[in-house]
């Protein structure tokens, strides 16, 4: 069986924003390098599920709404971040090279338990918006309060930008937001953000 996430180099992958020039300036917009994404469902009240996932991922699943947990590694690129999406739903972002291993570990540890670990690596892309006006830019399409007092570093939220459903993530205290969006909506979100950046 081929490695699902890493086909031979002869095959050229694309991404929804690969033909768009990154926006650079006071506010910057770029598409992040592709990462693996795994949607995880399970019973948070089941201690066995929680410990099995913690073992497999190297970090306990967050149970506080709209928070994340990051499994730190020696090289930052191998860090894996788990996003709380719902009381029984999480999303894992990890390095593409580790995806098959992580999925296998999850499936192995969780096999006897009621769960779902679904590969959604290609479903979404992640855009990164940065600069001191990043929050003001997002405010043009996102109804959430993104003030630093409210939406703090390492928090995430499922919300919308314009007509697109997005997962927002603030990785650190800097004015940086990651916007995970469905492949088919990425062009729309990109164009919307670029237009706002240009007008501010």
């Amino acid at each position, binding site marked *: 069986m081929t490695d699902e996430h890493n086909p031979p180099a002869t095959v050229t992958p*694309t991404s929804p924003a690969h033909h768009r020039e990154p926006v650079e300036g006071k506010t910057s917009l770029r598409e992040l390098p592709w990462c693996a994404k795994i949607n995880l469902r399970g019973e948070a009240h089941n201690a066995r599920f929680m410990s099995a996932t913690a073992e497999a991922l190297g970090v306990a699943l967050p149970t506080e709404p709209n928070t994340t947990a990051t499994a730190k590694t020696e090289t930052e690129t191998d860090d894996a971040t788990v996003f709380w999406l719902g009381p029984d739903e999480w999303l894992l972002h990890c390095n593409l090279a580790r995806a098959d291993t992580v999925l296998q570990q999850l499936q192995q540890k969780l096999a006897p338990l009621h*769960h*779902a670990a679904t*590969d959604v690596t290609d479903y979404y892309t992640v855009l990164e918006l940065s600069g001191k006006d990043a929050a003001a830019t997002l*405010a043009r399409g*996102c109804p959430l309060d993104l003030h630093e007092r409210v939406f703090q570093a390492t928090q995430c939220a499922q919300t919308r930008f314009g007509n697109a459903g997005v997962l927002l993530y603030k990785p650190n205290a800097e004015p940086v937001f990651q916007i995970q969006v469905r*492949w088919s909506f990425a062009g729309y979100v990109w164009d919307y953000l670029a237009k706002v950046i240009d007008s501010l």
Partner: protein
Amino acid sequence: MTQVNRLPDGGRLNRAKVIRFWYDDKKYEGYPGDTLASALLANGVRLVGRSFKYHRPRGIFSAGAEEPNALVQLESGPYTEPNRRATEVELYEGLVAHSQNCWPSVGFDLGALSSRLSRLLPAGFYYKTFMWPRALWMTYEKFIRKAAGLGRAPSEPDPDSYDKLHAHCDVLVVGGGPAGLRAACAAGATGARVMLVDEANEVGGHLLLGQHTDIGGLVANRWITERLAELNQMAQATLLTRTTVTGYYDYNFLVANERVTEHLGPNRGDKAPKERLWKIRAKQVVLATGSIERPLVFADNDRPGVMLASAVRAYINRFGVLPGKRIVVLTNNDSAYHTALDAKRAGAAVEIVDIRPDPAGEPIEWARSLDIPIHVNSALSAVGYARGKITQVTVMTLSPDGNEVRGEARHLRCDVVAVSGGWTPTVHLFSQAKGKLEFSDDLHCFVPAAADDATDDTTHSLFCAGACRGSYTLAECLTEGRDAGLAAAAAAGFADTPETVAEAAVEPAPPPASQRHAPQYGPRYGPMRALWILPCDHPIGEGAKKHFHELHNDSTIADIALAAREGFESVEHLKRYTTTGMGTDQGKTSNLNALVALSDLRGAPIPALGATTFRPPYTPLTFGAIIGQERRELFLQKRTTPMHAWHDRHGAVYEDVGDWKRPFYFPKEGEDMRAAVRRECLAARNAVGILDASTLGKIDIVGEDAVKLLNMVYTNAWNRLAPGRCRYGLMVNEHGMVFDDGVTTRLGEHHYHMTTTTGGAARVLNWLEEWLQTEWFGRAKVYCTSVTEQWAVASISGPHSRALLAELCEQPVDGESFPFMSMQQFAVAGIPARVFRISFTGELAFEINVPARFGLALWQALWQAGEKYGICPYGTEAMHVLRAEKGFIIAGQDTDGTVTPMDLGMDWLVSKTKDDFVGKRSFSRTDTARAGRKQLVGLRTETPDFVLPEGAHVVEKLLDAPPMKMLGHVSSSYLSPNAGRSIALALIKDGFKRKGETLEVALTDGGSHRVTVTDTVFFDSEGERARD
């Protein structure tokens, strides 16, 4: 001579710079700081429009948002905007405005003839005059449309840009007068995130109205400057001027419109938008919206030159304009005395007509000390008007009950009447927020009831401060502002710090009596005479003179009387029947006086009548602001697949399927749609066609109860589906009606891959979740995860599809190794893939699913390898034809929510043995089980190449005229190159029994076409080709 009414100095103007502008094609001059209204008054322009119904000449009435008369058509061409209040339009170089509702000119208006016909235009005249005869309504409507419109909407696309955004704060303060400024500063000092919003171009509110004369200009100005400096130093404070809060919705959600660059003139904003819409979610709201002066209603009170007293004062002090040389102040309270004093000091000849018998107190003494004549216990019984201006007013003595005038008529020469009937708290937003109003017998107006009653949700509350709750003195405004600001901040979780308490204590000392800033009246400032509708020398409504309570919609006291006589005496009926308080004006100067009139007529106190509902917007919003950035390409998302760039390069014409852009067909040079679709249909059956099927909905279903879920949501049975095998299923709703279909594949022991229609993807997932979460909650061990866009899908169809696939994989794909209705995982063109041998065309076909990143690579590999097989990309139209040739339905096209599987002839898909499934019970309902339902059949046209229009009605025999018996309609219809003729599917009453019958299909040209009812399969009726 220009600017004849401009005072030599004063006003918040930049007199160093002259601005030129055009009004009704005449050139005028003004200064930065002017509004269009103040500049027109400065230039002696009195006539600014014709009234809505009677086309009476009208002039500028106010100096703010309450303006009912001076609505102008601003700018021209694509920049034009109707119904702009001249009192709010800031003057800029080159401004162009036109008066509205008059033709050929404002001075000579043909429509004014309707004034002579006013007896024919009573209240409710629309409802009466134009109802009969009905057949003439079309004619009437044209007349009404032409006569009724005020301005003209632009007919060209709007070249301006607009912005909209979401904003959040702890405390939102609406109104930047003394109360609002104080509130914002007090709240901001606690560290709360504060927004202060004011509709004017600068904050200050009523402080700006009289800052330059008797009220100590320096004090007020410096105080404003200090507050602004305070706010500027707060990192978390936002100040918005030129911004109107237009709506107050549930849970402290408010909408405000900021006029960002409009005041610079068209196309001068560089990249900045013309307007910006703020959608504000505030934890707490402080309303400091101030008050609007209330007019008195008297004979011919609509003449140009009749103005609110506060407006005259604003024009003198804020704009350096003296609107008239001889000003008569008509009042029932003390506040208008300040206007008289200011006008006198500015050089006007002033007389006061006070309807009170014995006014007393400081303002009266000040007026006397300036030798201003005061006519007490008197009213205006007539207004002399000639050649566009007031010439004189007639003053008579009021009877003690105020119902009539008597005695000698005195004539006062004047050109302006400044009128005051007290003040009305601006409670629009408070009322929109479901705040309860109560009538104050002291102040004779509605005021907010106790703030605690404003909302039942303790986490969101609102506070009122200052004039909007009837507190009119500066001292009250400042104290209430501070208290409200601190209380709001505390409620938002920002308690007083020692600093803020100390700061709050540093309150400016109340100004001396001679420097009172705010309009003042009420119990402590001299009583008001509770009389607003002044009699004249003939009974109201019976003579030539009209008493307008509502200038904007041209509604008179006589109209109210008529409405009451005809039984429309509830305030809500009165509002609709007389149009009082409707339109862009929203009754800002008229509602209370209408209530007074109704109260008099019904002999009931105003509180017993109640008030009509205040609705957003407070002042009109433009569509541009509401839409913001979301126009053109951002109006609606165009969802595209990973292969979209290829489709673009190959000239695809797109079809909108939901939000998706799917290739409709791929025309070659010189081909029309028909030729392209024909070519695509033939290739997919005779060589190999390739379709982008990425948009199909896909749901990953996992869990030990997965098969139970499938058994419940599909009509057929799923127990015996082996791993790696696929099955088609129909989904019906609780009523047994088909709503989606698709193929589901068993991937593993408890693991399934469900596909749905493109448009139904989200609906089906919601449907599954609804049953799981609400009906079978806690019982079913199954998770559903959308994987729609995880997979890019290339569907290859046609006799060469197998050879093509074989070339790109290392797997045997012959019929035995890879049978029909099964799935295998292997690499295609080096890409890990899930390959499904399923077919929507009825041909040998493979649906190749790869991770989306490799969709384009897969497509290109297939395209290159397929060249020798004559590969042809086909779009959704060919797909529709191909499936219709096979009689395959499209849920939503051949079904419409009233069609059961049995109606489709798909009984074989409905399990007889399953205990239960969604919709099962409904199949035994009388109506679902009855004979004579519409059933899906095929139609063959008499003329082989005649294509029936989809949606056409099917009848037994077309009669000359309705009624005739309708049998059903054509649901799908195409020219089929493979069947060599036109084919159609139709839902026909008793269709199965009618096979072989000849029916008629009605056409829109009045004719019909004969058809024969057939089976639904038009090609390869044995289904051999897909199984090959």
